[in-house]
């Protein structure tokens, strides 16, 4: 189960973003945009 790192819900395969060579999945575009503003905030 890939968890959306922003909101903690289940991520969808089609909404993804890559940071430092690792893929992250999101429940909606809004979470992806939020993640991309400052990935470090959500992956530590």
């Amino acid at each position, binding site marked *: *189960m890939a*968890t959306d790192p*922003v909101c*903690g819900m*289940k991520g969808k395969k089609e909404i993804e973003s890559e940071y430092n060579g690792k893929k992250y999945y999101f429940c909606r575009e809004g979470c992806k945009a939020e993640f991309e503003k*400052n990935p*470090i905030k959500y992956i*530590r």
Partner: protein
Amino acid sequence: MAVDPVCGMYVSEDSKIYSEQDGTRYYFCSQGCKDKFDEPDAESKNLKLKLMVAWPFSIAIMAIGYLFVFNFKNFVLLLLVLPVQFYAGLDFYRGAYAAVKNRMGNMDLLISLGTLTAFFFSLVITFYPGLFPVDYTYFDASAFIITLILTGNYIENLTKRKANSSASALLSLIPDRVHLLDNGIPRDIMIEKLVPGNIIQVRPGENVPADGIVADGSSEIDESMLTGESEPVLKKAGSNVTSGTMNINGTLSVKVTAAGKNSTVNKIYSLIQMASMGRAKIQKISDIFSSYFVPIVLIAATSSAIFWYFYLRSSGNPLYFIISILVFVSVVVIACPCAIGLAAPITLLISSNESSRNGILIKNSSSMDRLSKIDTVIFDKTGTITDNTPKIINFTTSGDRKLAVSLLYSIESGSNHPVARAIVEYLQGMNPEKLDISQYKEVPGIGVTGEYMGKTLEARRSGEHISLLIDGNELASLNVEHNLRSGIEKDIKNLIRNNIRVLIVTGDTVENTGRIASQLGIEEYYCSIKPEGKAEIVMEQQKKGSYVMFVGDGINDTVAMQTADVGVAMASGSDIATASGDIILLNNDLKNILGSIIIGKYTIRKIKQNIGWAIGYNSALIPVAAGVLVPLLGLGIYYVLPIFAALAMGLSSTTVVLNSMRLGKHMEKGIMASSL
């Protein structure tokens, strides 16, 4: 996937059980959860009524079952169990039906399976005596499963309501009836009927029922319930008033700008309530556990029942079928997905209630994990560590003074910035004229711009100096002087003493910042920084491994606050509901910065405890129900195990709630211990 805001379980967005509030759709795992969300009071009344039926009948069934022997006893027991089974237990079946329809598993499904299995098995024994080697029924088990679990739900409901008392206290600030001014004549109407644009009368001693602007009259208003500020504030024509505040001594006519769900008090209430919707990172483990929980329990219940069926049959025990039924019932009843689902949401709800009592409004409870790890606090200077309302000094104008005063007044009235507000208030004493400014724009960190009669008007802020320019020519200038907030020295010392790095990042000059930093014992500071630069500094610190909290006024520092692990805004009045940031400090009290970090640490600790407890409970008791203790205690335990299972299950989620309730006291002690 949506999250049930009541129990925290995952729910498919195809679910038919949902409720809409403020344009947001909330999905629920069961009808019971929806009812709890829609009408928490009705839920408590409904439970009370059902318990009043369930307890007397269950006790009667137990007493008759064990104490008396007479003909047709099982038929009498059947009559007695019907009200419990099909009235008191009705909501469980509704929830189970909805779960099956949505192809989901929930607690109701497990309880329904357990109690209905016991009921129908007993029904067969009643109508076909002799089919099994026993003639006693298990109506007592099916009745007690329902009664005990309902009792657990009732206790949980009462405790939750108590936990929610500070949020509910907010709503009680709004009166039921308001005095609507109909062509100047007051007429009482219900608060629900109030709409923006209405003019209402607020009399001395009454609470302001909605957000609005004073149209007529003047009075002192006590805003302490929202801001913590004990000093009353004078309101006159043109001033904003906020719902929930108290009118002390004058009669006001107020033009309503936001009423009902859109009023500040209601929005704050919703924010506190929605805390339980946040997903803390730590919940990942409970999410994994609960998503597989119901199927695993059903497999465990069926396989252990099958095991005992064949094992006892092969060893010649005539009770093999009965025991295997009781094993199934015990396992499905003892399993408690709710305790796992509740572990985090209830803690977040209690934490947000306790915090709001202390003037800390947690807008985004998903930031709780990050909050618990904060080791660096970056303060904006103006309006954060210095007083929100600056003093205006050295006001000078060149040329037409009246025009300069009116232009500065008109352009600054459009801004919410504390400096702009102070200037507007200062100029009000000079009888300014409100002029028409077009193309109005606020540029964070620079000031405000607009057009007046085709000319470019600018009110530029540079540190503590503000100048009004028209087509580049200076019309007026002034300086603002900021005093340190009272008690800030102690608050900063407390942070440093608790090993938290403190930095100042500001748009102000090096002289002003250096002076204030040395006064406060802060060694690191960045000055002349634009708003986007503040966010870059936050990111730099994060890259070095720090968990950063940014404390600002919530207007100019939005980007830095969003970038930081936790953004804290200082806000008051109607800005509370709209200010950005994960946390809002209602009473501008900076001691709450350390307070909120401690709240984060305690909340996460409590969630971990609850999750550990809930997983431990299920992992330990499901095997007991499945029969691991039979070699020690014998098969006789199954005479009491189904009822024991219901008792344990009823108490397990209550235990989670009660454990979370202790959070308030723990947080208070923690805050006391870390402060000087």
